[in-house]
């Protein structure tokens, strides 16, 4: 019996099926817990899934590469999903036409603030160059952030983790900060959440109102474009 299980394990460990299934199960359990506990932003399903899978890999002595052989099928969808962001962006076309100048100014200011303060604070506290370059695109939605990190000499998978942590922080404390500085307009609140904490911030903004959520989604897409254009230039100028 034990031998049977061992033979099955040896077989499964070499197919992509296991990594793929583990990813979907961990995420769904994370979503279930998140919803059960009142959608607490600190209990993010992504954070839960990542911690659960890392622990599983450590306990079974599985290498990340073996896991990724299966999980890459999920990972691949980030490409078409990024392209699909054009659809919600297009839905906000009339808003974009009406106040495009102030939206662009706010997004560019936020994009520069995110990159400069992230690198500045970490540099002042003695972070390595690889860490600095991985931190720089941390407010941008993951697929874009990973591409930027690769380009400027960061570690894309470290960036992915930092992006997710940034999203969770922004969703947890963003609305509190906006209340403290007395920003009431849904447009300004949505833009701030979307620029600072991408998709996870957008999910939080949608809980406030549909307008806040729409502006947040718009800001997420525009910030991706702005940072992808500005950050490599900024790095080239400074180094």
């Amino acid at each position, binding site marked *: 019996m034990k031998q049977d299980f061992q033979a099955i394990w040896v077989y499964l460990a070499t197919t992509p099926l296991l990594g793929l299934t583990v990813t979907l199960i961990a995420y769904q359990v994370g979503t279930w817990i998140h919803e059960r506990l009142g959608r607490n932003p600190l209990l993010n399903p*992504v954070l839960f899934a990542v911690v659960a899978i890392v622990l599983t890999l450590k306990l079974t002595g599985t290498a990340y590469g073996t896991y990724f052989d299966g999980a890459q099928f999920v990972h691949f969808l980030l490409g078409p*999903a990024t392209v699909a962001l054009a659809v919600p962006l297009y839905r906000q076309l009339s808003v974009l036409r009406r106040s495009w100048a102030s939206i662009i100014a706010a997004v560019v200011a936020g994009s520069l603030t995110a990159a400069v303060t*992230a690198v500045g*604070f970490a540099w002042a506290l003695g972070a390595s160059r690889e860490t600095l370059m991985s931190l720089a695109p941390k407010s941008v939605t993951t697929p874009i952030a990973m591409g930027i990190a690769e380009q400027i000499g960061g570690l894309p998978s470290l960036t992915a983790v930092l992006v997710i942590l940034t999203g969770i922080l922004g969703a947890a404390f963003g609305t509190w900060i906006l209340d403290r500085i007395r920003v009431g307009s849904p447009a300004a609140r949505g833009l701030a959440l979307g620029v600072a904490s991408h998709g996870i911030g957008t999910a939080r903004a949608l809980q406030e109102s549909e307008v806040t959520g729409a502006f947040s989604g718009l800001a997420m897409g525009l910030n991706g474009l702005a940072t992808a254009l500005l950050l490599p230039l900024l790095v080239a100028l400074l180094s």
Partner: protein
Amino acid sequence: MLSNLTLLLLCQLAGEVLARLLGLPLPGPVVGMALLFGGLVARRRMPVGLEETAHGLLRHLALLFVPAGVGVTLYLPLIADEWLPISFSLLASTAATIAVTAAVMRALAPRRSSDG
């Protein structure tokens, strides 16, 4: 459904090719997003079913982050070494970004009575 998925992949493919040919400082999928956005604006209407396909992909956007996030397992020693600059930078920078973006938008946006 299938034709819209093909459209998304074609945009991504065109994006990858364009980014490399022109040496653009942008990831291929981002160029693909810009191409699709430009196409939608030029065409002035959404292809049938594209909304549903995009919605289906974006509804579970968070799931797609998981495999890359698990990559943290490769960087645990680095994060343990630099936990202070990393955590302080994430907290302070996220707060600053939210405050600056909201303040600029509040200062510049056309005022409307409904904005409160």
